[in-house]
């Protein structure tokens, strides 16, 4: 099935999604990689607010290439999500609803997805130009010193994604290969 969603999202918005479905996501998406996640944890430890409203938010693990004059964004495919595993459960428990990246997640993240009714969606790894095509605006909102790892606020339109982890424990990285092998 294909679903259209707009951020911020609620648990109810995500409840129909199953591993293997596709999503066309619109609205605000925040970017953050390892370095930004680490700083967000330091803010939380110090009792400070995060740089964006986390409730119902979508975070995209990406470090785009620099945009040329006249371009909204450079190439912008996902980075490997596993590097965010140490940080994600805490953000999911605070209300983050959607993680966007590529690659496997650990058990703690998979459990936090189910506990919070959240989802993990895959962008197409290595398809930076295709992913950039759905971005309508970009603004660096925090930690500019991190360069490509700075936190950016993106507005996206019909951002093409695939459900990897769903709120019911489904995992496309297991069920997808298994279904293909069973078809042989």
């Amino acid at each position: 099935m294909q679903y259209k969603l707009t951020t911020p999202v609620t648990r109810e918005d995500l409840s129909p999604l199953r591993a293997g479905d596709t999503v066309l996501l619109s609205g605000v998406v925040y970017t953050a990689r390892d370095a930004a996640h680490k700083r967000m944890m330091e803010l939380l430890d110090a009792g400070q607010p995060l740089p964006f409203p986390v409730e119902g938010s979508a975070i995209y693990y990406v470090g785009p290439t620099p945009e040329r004059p006249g371009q909204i964004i450079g190439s912008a495919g996902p980075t490997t999500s596993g590097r965010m595993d140490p940080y994600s459960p805490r953000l999911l428990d605070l209300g983050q609803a959607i993680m966007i990246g590529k690659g496997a997640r650990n058990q703690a993240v998979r459990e936090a997805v189910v506990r919070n009714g959240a989802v993990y969606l895959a962008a197409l790894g290595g398809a930076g130009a295709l992913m950039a095509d759905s971005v309508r605006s970009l603004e660096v909102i925090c930690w500019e010193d991190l360069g490509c790892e700075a936190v950016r606020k993106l507005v996206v339109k019909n951002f093409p994604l695939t459900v990897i982890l769903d709120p019911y424990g489904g995992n496309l990285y297991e069920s997808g290969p298994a279904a293909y092998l069973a078809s042989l």
Partner: protein
Amino acid sequence: MRTIFASAITDTVARLCIQANSQLPPDVAAALKRANRAEPWPLARETLELLQDNLDLARIRNLPICQDTGMACVFVELGQDVHIQGDFEQAIHQGVRQGYGEGYLRKSLVADPLRRVNTGDNTPATLTLRLVPGDKLTITVAPKGFGSENMSRLAMLRPADGVEGVKQFVVETVRLAGPNPCPPIILGVGVGGSFDKVAALAKHALLRPLDRPHPDPFYAALEQELLEKINSLGIGPQGFGGKTTCLGLAIEAAPTHVAGLPVAVNVSCHVTRRATAEL
């Protein structure tokens, strides 16, 4: 003795950095198309088509194919009858600085692995230099992304493990990598040499075009067998399931010690980039 100016090396490296990041080598592009035609699983076929669309969009929109424009791995074959006027190594680094700046490519290097401050210009390059006969200078720039690099592995097997041990290690590496290295992947496999040499063999194997099998029929057959084993794992494009897990695999072997059987697997992605020029 032929003189080549350092400035010519810089300009060439800069041009190759941009070229490699904006268009796939013809053999990799052809392998992607071929895989699409041979893929029986619908979701996998759709995914491969999107990867094809990405290549077209990168060209139309003047964007790098992938946002991880990589560590600049530069391979130089230097003719021993060449005299370089100027600082050779600095010329290479300056070329990377220039190419990554002018090409709007991502600066992905940190100066120190533990203190992690970005160098700001994607330098230094990783330089591999080989002296060869003649008066030519051949430069290959192979930008390497780390989503796949991080999935690479090395083992010091026992001679008793033999070819079966090597096969097991390669297939196990792909299984462990799963969806992380952006499949369909491309593999460079090193066998033999020493601890450091075997990793260099694996990296160098990634430079060989996918349509060119190993010249030794023994290794050519091993490449084919491994490719078939890997493509029966079911991982598929992006790890969503399917036949197309690996587009190509190249082995490089070297003499080794009586007591050892080193093996290394350098994992690369469907955006395996390389561009070459001769001066």
